[in-house]
């Protein structure tokens, strides 16, 4: 008999710690089904962005109305386009996906939302919950560019959103944050106090790029690299002892069983994947699970529960490794190796 892979996330019992995070593969029922078939334990659907569901229909409407009543030969009330039915404009497409995913899947379905005002957070979270989502992930995806908005204000906004949704909704609540907070443990504790059930670490922003031909700035998605897992790894390790009852999800850089093992050891309850699944297809989940099982068997771990947080900031043999001191050591050893023409310098 193999090791026990079950885990708890946001109070939901999962068959394994492998969760598909929000991405193109979780946006369609067919691929969701394939992910479940491959063994994924839960799915996070693509975020409902407030701007998208509100601005996109306005833009479409504007385009559809171009030329309406402009000249005598094109007088139709529908302009240059036929009068189409758009059942899914606005939040509809997201709500239908939740409904369809719920009816097609047995694994828990987590819906994700990104809004601006507290009211909108609540409004869309409620819509998603009413559509049947097993849990809601608040996706705090925000780039602060206003020099008049200080860190307190930014964090107050985060907490207000969590508070507002928590007070209105009873479904389990995860909060996905970025790593760019100056005092992450304090913020994480506040989020927990406001009633969130879990934290998802971390958002990977769509980072801008500069087109060297046009000198334009473009936003494009770059798939993650396994080395990126180190960022969530550190913070999960640090947060785990601070928030023993809080669910922690690692996302960014989870590509193989190796990263899964690491984040579980650091203290994660689940490991979320997107890039690896996009690159290798839904069936990749099965391989990752096999790698996890193989590692656990080889190292004689009987359960995920046993692994969870066993190498955290509190339980690590060398806790300083999670801190700054470790950076200095790494750097100096790198420079030393480099000077000596060692392996690091190759």
């Amino acid at each position, binding site marked *: 008999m193999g090791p026990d892979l079950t885990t708890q996330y946001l109070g939901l019992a999962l068959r394994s710690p492998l969760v598909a995070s929000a991405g193109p593969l979780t946006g369609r029922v067919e691929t969701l089904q394939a992910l479940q078939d491959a063994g994924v334990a839960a799915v996070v659907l693509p975020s409902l962005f407030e701007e998208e*569901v*509100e*601005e*996109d*229909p*306005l833009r*479409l*409407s*504007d*385009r*559809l*109305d*171009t*030329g*309406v*009543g*402009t*000249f*005598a*030969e*094109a*007088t*139709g*009330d*529908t*302009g*240059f*386009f*036929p*009068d*189409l*039915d*758009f*059942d*899914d*404009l*606005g*939040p*509809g497409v997201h709500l239908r996906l939740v409904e369809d995913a719920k009816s097609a899947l047995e694994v828990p379905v987590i819906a994700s939302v990104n809004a601006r005002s507290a009211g909108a957070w609540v409004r869309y979270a409620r819509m998603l919950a009413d559509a049947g989502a097993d849990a809601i992930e608040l996706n705090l995806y925000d780039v602060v560019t206003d020099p008049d908005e200080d860190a307190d204000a930014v964090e107050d906004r985060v907490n207000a959103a969590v508070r507002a949704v928590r007070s209105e909704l009873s479904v389990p609540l995860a909060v996905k944050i970025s790593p760019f907070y100056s005092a992450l443990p304090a913020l994480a504790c506040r989020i927990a106090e406001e009633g969130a059930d879990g934290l998802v670490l971390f958002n990977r922003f769509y980072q801008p790029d500069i087109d060297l031909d046009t*000198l334009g700035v473009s936003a494009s998605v770059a798939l993650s690299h396994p080395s990126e897992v180190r960022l969530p790894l550190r913070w999960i390790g640090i947060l785990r002892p601070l928030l023993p009852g809080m669910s922690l999800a690692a996302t960014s850089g989870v590509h193989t069983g190796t990263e899964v093992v690491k984040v579980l050891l650091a203290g994660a309850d689940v490991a979320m994947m997107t890039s690896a699944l996009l690159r290798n297809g839904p069936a990749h989940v099965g391989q990752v699970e096999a790698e996890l099982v193989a590692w656990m068997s080889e190292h004689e771990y009987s359960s995920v529960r046993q692994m969870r947080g066993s190498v955290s900031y509190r339980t690590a043999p060398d806790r300083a490794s999670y801190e700054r001191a470790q950076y200095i050591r790494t750097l100096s050893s790198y420079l030393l190796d480099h000077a000596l023409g060692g392996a690091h310098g190759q």
Partner: protein
Amino acid sequence: MTWVCLDGNDAAARVAYSLSEVLAIYPITPASPMGEAVDAWSGTDRPNLWGEVPTVVEMQSEAGAAGALHGAIQAGALGSTFTASQGLLLMVPNMFKIAGELTPTVIHVAARAVATHALSIFGDHSDVMSTRSTGFAMLASSSVQEAHDLALVSHAATLRCRVPFLHFFDGFRTSHEIGKITVLEPEHLRALVREQDVTAHRDRGLSPEHPVVRGTAQNPDVFFASREGANPFYAAVPGVVTEVMDELAVLVGRRYRLVEYVGDPEAERVVVLMGSAVGAVTEVVDALRADGEKVGAVVVRLFRPFPSDEVAAAIPSTARAVAVMDRTKEPGAPAEPLYLDVLSALHAAGRSDLPLVGARYGLGSAELRPRDVKALLDHLGAPHRAGSVTLGITDDLSGTSLPVDDSFRVPSRAVQAVFYGLGSDGTVGANKTAITIIGEQTDLYAQGYFVYDSKKAGSVTVSHLRFGPDPIRSTYLVEDDTADFVACHQFSLLERIDVLAAARPRATFLLNSPYPADEVWDHLPAEVQQQVLDKSLDLWVIDAHRVARRLGLGARINTVMQPCFFALSSVLPEQAALEALKDAVRSRYAKRGPSVVERNLAAIDASLEQLRHVSVPTEVTGGPRPRLTVPADAAAFLTDVTVPLIAGQGAGLPVSLLPADGTYPTGTARLEKRALARDLPMWDPSICIDCGKCAIVCPHAAIRTKVFESDLLAGAPEGYQSKPYRDRTLVDHVLTVQVAPDDCTGCGICVDVCPARSKEDASHKALDLVPAGERRDVERPRWDFFLSRPEVDRAAVRRETVKGSQLLQPLFEFSGACSGCGETPYVKLVSQLFGDRMVVANATGCSSIYGGNLPTTPWAPGADGRGPAWSNSLFEDNAEFGLGLRLGIDAHTDQARRLLSELGPWLGDELVSALLLSDQQDEAEIARQRVRIEALRQRIARLVDEGDSDERLPRLALLADNLVRRSVWAMGGDGWAYDIGFGGLDQVLSSGADINVLVMDTEVYSNTGGQASKATPRGATAKFAVAGKSSAKKDLGAFARAYGNVYVAQVALGANEIQTVRALVEADAWRGPSLVIAYSTCIAHGIDMATSMTHQKDAVASGYWELYRYHPAEGEHTVPFHLDSKAPTQPLRDFLLAETRFSALARSDPTRARALFSLAQQDVSERRRYYEQLAAVQRTMAHTVADPDELPESADEEVE
């Protein structure tokens, strides 16, 4: 009884749809909405009366639609179609057949002028009258209600009597008028369309179960006699129609007769007419009778078979004079058709002595006002009557018009309102909603009619609304000094249009103003202030644009302005009106998502909060309206005709001033200074790289490049910008990139394509958009100075380069095309390259409208007076028309060359041989040829002066200009080239003639509002392809390439300017047929038109549009196909989803969209693979071989 507000097209189409199984359609104004409606209903599986969903098929032309209809009804199906004007004429051959075979069907016609000296999209009966001899019965509706009711009468009667029906109503006036009517219920249709008649029709259908032949060829022995066999069927028609009308009356209470009389039973003066003018005429008859005048009107409903007895009987015996009003003109006929029919009826009734006056009126929707009708009735009572008169115009040429009392108005209890807006601001849509709310939620009757100008960018719309307790019969625009409410939805219109002419004293005036109530007065032109004071108008303002902008509604201010109208007009209690408006918003926008509904609802709430009353001062403080001026040396024609046309005063121009043959001067668009742009491009010469891209992409020729010698900068206005021009030939020249501040539409394309960015600030380009308000005054003197600099010597620039081509003067400028139009840059470029020796055949469509719709034309002469000569024949025949122009020119060139040869010894052999041998392959040689022609003329003149009487000399002088190679271009859109004109295009391409064809492929019928053509790509939604077009786009170039000797190019200016220039130059140089297919972005694609040109790059990068040139050649190992675009680097899907025509389908039917997009990707990939193979294929064009010995012996004779 259900009251609804509909327009005439909708009213007729509903009946036709319910009573048909097959509908064959084709778009043509003003009938297109009928086809669009039935297509949309079929697309949503709306059943007909029998529970079946009718099949709707779009054909390649009206001729095709008529053929398909003919087939369907011959198969025993119930069929119908809709058309107008030229479309109806294309149906004529089939109409003879359908009628000759006694096959029931109904053609619904929104009657429209047939193109003569000019095209007119507007209403009259000239199309219908052209089909009088086809054998169709003809029933005329004069109102929206009648268009509905008589549509049913037509369908029911045709099945009973087997004679096919043409049911017509006046284009625009009825087809586009929104009226409040009661709709027929299915049981009414079922009662009148008897099952036994339907069964009998089906039984006559062709079937192998009971085979027959129909449509035989007959010999002299029986043809005539057989034809007479139809007589009893026609004899029965009046009775059948009466019977159906009577049955309808029993069912719905509306009683119609073949011929009706309105007026004094003992009338002395009577008019006979049919069509929408009945409304205005009966109003006048009633008004005059109230004053004791003995007048009346006979309304003819059944026009064919003509009910002579009924007409004669309807004219009271007391009548002393009768006028017959005809809305058509038959030049050369003794009189117009209805007149002749009435004359014949009176003769048959023994009343030949009753004096008749023929009155032509309303051609091309010319207004017929009550005062015109009164003038006619007055004329009937005059001692000296003319036999033929015209109404509504001033005919100072033949003296046919009548004196009119301009103060005459008919009394009305209706509230009248006039709204001025722009096409893009939603005013028309708002007023349609208002009419519907009033009509359907109150007991009031309501009417809406909408007038558009000829422009596509910045077009002005005027909405005329009436509502009141009595049925509304006023079939004319709201007259001056009668409107109770006037709204101006765009402040800038106050400077261009006399919006308050319509206002009655103490009327309400609602103004969308960027200025608050306490400041607005001083911003009003003096003329407007004077009218406000003189008429004691009640002035209200709102800044609707601010409200709309704040709510993310852009330029569409409809939901902001509407509540103000309701609040001020008090037609409904305010709260009820607001609720009704909100319901309308919910119903209109529900499909568009909750945020769209919410923003519009918010606009309604915000609207009334911002509405302010203006305390009108007692003094006029404003300055006068800017007046349109023409250059002092302008021809009188411009001053007398063009300027009034631009000012909207064309209806007052007398006949003598208007060219009878439709010939107008070019170069007139430059007179219209419309100042549409909200932003203007500003040039920074310090970072400009002289590339010319800005000028080549400009759709309006409103940003230009010019080089001239630097000493010509003397006298430049302060701040005039220039930079040294880098060129080996044009040394010591400077370059200026200059915007025409009053002609630019502010589309932003030049800024989008500008590749030159500041090294220090990447957001700053050599062209940046800045608010026009700041720039216009700065740029005006610069533009004038720029224009005053001489044009570059054409021979001194390399025209096959982008920047070189853009130094040539555009001879197509400032068109009224849509802002950002993808077609016009091609037209402009062609005009720059070949304009001074170019003749254009222009297919009807967008390009003929922005190219040749009065008041002005963008086609223009250059400084030397030479420029494109342009003409539009029809939609369907443009290639043939172009070929004809070529043949005509060639005939003259050949004659000139022959005369040159014959007269060589007298004219000088050296000059003559130079003239004959000139290859004219470049601008320098063309210039030299022109010098030679001038020399030739001088020599001829000298010889004549010296007494040489050879008659060939003056003939040669007349024809000599043909010795410069003329560049003949047939241009038009994909509707023409792919569909209706394809057969002719194929013929012309096969002819070997030296003709150039430019197809501006927008992949949709743009001009008529977005119907699918065979150029529409797979997966795109369009009208007539509501669910996304399932078939792939036709490869038009493949047909042309197949000939082997046709130059074919596919280009996309925004993707590759130089390839486009090269293709056009090669096409012109090719001494055989050339076809250039040009990708043309269009507002019908649903893209941001500011990125219209860069979007074309994506089209090519995704493989959606391939660039190639097929250059036929005689060499044995030549590869004629040059694939100019690289292998796709972007997924097609990304490109498709950037366009609303595709993304709308992805949102409305994602499953189908996925399937179609996948097929579209396959289309693209497969085409690429095929083209790549073609790019390696050797092909030799057939050519004359110099050495006859190389040919097989049997061919010797042919070679010799």
